[in-house]
């Protein structure tokens, strides 16, 4: 299967050509059918025929890389679905609308003759059904600690069982192995090696579940011990739960984790496309740029986790492109991998100075390239996480949150969609810290972070803006809807009981909201949301206020 991407591409091209010819005929047929709607007649069969062709084009427009055709076909379907009953003595009321759509589709079909090099695939969930509750084992000789970890993991929809002795754990492991084990490194009754043997003695050669170790120790010896026992991760106590959950998610459900986004820059279009197919087949999201001048736009659009750059490009060198990419501060953290036939180590070192992170030697089969990326993916992800996330909550940090806002604003301006920004601030948080201590306060911050991540959409941007202040960006959401969402969050959070040795308590937050296009720049949005937040605080807290557009 070494050249499966190339093989796919060749046959796919031929299929696409045949399809394009048929598309041409389909669009002509649609034109003729719509034309008949303009004169009085019984239109019902014609409408059915139009709907039938449109339905077919929805699916294969996407499959054959003509997404515009697919979108227009969907619109035609929608027009017909909502069309008023026809009166056969007149022209059909939807004839004009359909006629315009078919005209636009004819243009889209013509444009599809030239395949677009630069595109990002929409990522669909692996299944329309929700993620099933996954089972975890938490093993700690202290049942209280085990219970505490388990309780918090339950909030994330895991099914958790706890064990404090070896025998019960061993029995359950053999009977109903979990998706993952969280285990204290020092476990009575057995050594780490013993645990390793236990895991490997599973019946019928089943693959043992990954083990994440937790420990009080942070020394080299302890970590080495864990590594030798086959640890998939190592966490020191007190555990940073959001980091633990990230690891669990990544290990138990690699497919639901966000796919690695790769921007491919190569002026050899067929090769670049074959690379793209191999990477996508391996589960990554890709965009291909064959003209280096389009790199900046593609960076903004795809927000790649990594850039693959050919060293020799038309018009400029890969080094120069790398420098251009790095000249924007927002891109300093994106790893750049060079593709080059260059074996000369001195030359490679020169190129490294332009900000390259690694070299891959050409020629390389697309499948091999995909493996190279998969091997680097965890590291790329981890680095990126550290660069952009807040250590306590795992949310985006201040800088990354601001960058996220600018990105979403650029998109909203282009697509003419609204954005609403919410600033959240915990009420009386200083009092919580004073009364219950900072560890409890930190837990409150984390619980709000979890709630935000859990309840908001994947596309929403959630960051910790400062001490007890959080930034939430809701793309494509007008003020009215945002108000409902944030108020739902507010009510849900007010229900959460926080445990403390000094007695359980509840904590609330206040929020200020501001929307684009009422406020045009990132700075204005944040200022206005902040002022609205101040209003909310002044109005007695545990409430939300909206910023009104001036004039």
């Amino acid at each position, binding site marked *: *299967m070494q050249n*499966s*991407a190339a*093989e*796919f591409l060749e*046959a*796919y091209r031929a*299929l696409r050509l*045949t*399809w394009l010819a*048929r598309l041409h005929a389909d669009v002509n047929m649609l034109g003729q059918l719509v034309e008949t709607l303009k004169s009085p007649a019984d239109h019902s069969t014609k409408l059915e025929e139009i709907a039938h062709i449109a*339905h*077919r084009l*929805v*699916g*294969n*427009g*996407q*499959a*054959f890389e003509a997404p515009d055709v*697919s979108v227009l076909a969907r619109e035609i379907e929608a027009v017909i679905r909502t069309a008023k009953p026809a009166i056969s003595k007149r022209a059909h009321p939807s004839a004009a609308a359909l006629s315009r759509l078919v005209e636009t589709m004819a243009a889209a079909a013509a444009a599809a003759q030239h395949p677009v090099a630069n595109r990002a*695939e*929409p990522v*669909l969930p*692996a*299944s*329309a*059904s929700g993620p099933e509750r996954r089972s975890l084992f938490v093993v700690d000789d202290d049942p209280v600690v085990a219970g505490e970890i388990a309780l918090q993991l339950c909030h994330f929809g895991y099914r958790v069982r706890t064990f404090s002795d070896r025998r019960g754990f061993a029995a359950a492991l053999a009977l109903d192995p979990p998706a993952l084990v969280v285990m204290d490194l020092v476990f009575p009754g057995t050594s780490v090696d013993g645990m390793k043997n236990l895991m490997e003695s599973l019946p019928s*050669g*089943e*693959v043992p579940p990954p083990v994440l170790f937790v420990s009080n120790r942070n020394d080299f010896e302890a970590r080495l011990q864990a590594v030798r026992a086959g640890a998939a991760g190592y966490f020191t106590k007190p555990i940073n739960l959001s980091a633990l959950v990230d690891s669990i998610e990544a290990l138990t459900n690699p*497919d639901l984790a966000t796919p690695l986004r790769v921007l491919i820059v190569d002026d050899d279009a067929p090769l670049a496309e074959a690379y793209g*197919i191999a990477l*996508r*087949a*391996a*589960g990554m999201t890709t965009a291909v740029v064959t003209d280096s001048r389009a790199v900046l736009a593609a960076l903004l659009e795809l927000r790649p986790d990594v850039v693959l750059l050919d060293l020799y490009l038309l018009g400029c060198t890969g080094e120069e492109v790398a420098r251009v990419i790095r000249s924007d501060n927002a891109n300093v953290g994106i790893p750049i991998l060079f593709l080059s036939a260059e074996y000369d180590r001195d030359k490679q070192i020169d190129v490294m100075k332009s900000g390259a992170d690694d070299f891959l030697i050409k020629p390389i089969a697309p499948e091999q390239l995909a493996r190279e990326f998969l091997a680097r993916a965890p590291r790329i992800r981890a680095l990126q996480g550290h660069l952009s996330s807040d250590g306590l909550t795992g949310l985006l940090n201040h800088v990354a949150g601001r960058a996220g806002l600018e990105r979403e604003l650029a998109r909203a301006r282009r697509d003419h969609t609204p954005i609403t920004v919410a600033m959240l601030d915990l009420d009386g948080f200083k009092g919580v810290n004073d009364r219950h201590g900072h560890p409890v306060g930190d837990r409150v911050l984390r619980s709000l972070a979890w709630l935000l991540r859990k309840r908001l959409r994947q596309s929403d941007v959630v960051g910790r803006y400062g001490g007890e202040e959080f930034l939430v960006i809701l793309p494509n959401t007008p003020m009215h809807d945002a108000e409902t969402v944030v108020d739902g969050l507010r009510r849900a959070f007010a229900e959460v009981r926080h445990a403390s040795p000094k007695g359980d308590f509840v904590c609330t937050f206040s929020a200020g909201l501001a929307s684009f296009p009422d406020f045009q720049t990132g700075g204005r949005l944040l200022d206005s949301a902040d002022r609205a937040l101040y209003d909310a605080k002044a109005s007695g807290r545990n409430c939300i206020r909206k910023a009104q557009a001036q004039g």
Partner: protein
Amino acid sequence: MKPPLKRVLAVDDDPDILAVVALALRTLGGLDVITAASGAEALGLLGRETVDLVLLDVMMPGIDGLETLAAMQGNPALRHIPVVLMTARVKLYEQGAEQPAGVLAIIPKPFDPVTLPRRLQTLWEGHAK
């Protein structure tokens, strides 16, 4: 551990989709693929061929996907074969609604054929557990 996914029956009345799906599953997924252009043809094939999984379009003229599924469920020899539905009407099954019996997943149309082999493999592995 269950053996990896090997043989798939793909069913779609649209010959273009069927061709590109079969191509992707064969070349990128390394799978053995048989195809049917209708529910009736699929049921006929299933009577004499063995497959690990059926990839089934919902909207088809004649016996549609759901009827094909029901016929498979009613046949003890076919009931165990997991089915992945493809449909543009995902809304029908979103949020709360029960997935029909025997259905492993519903893949919303349109989809990227390149990513399909991996998705099926992942679903198959999840199903094996």
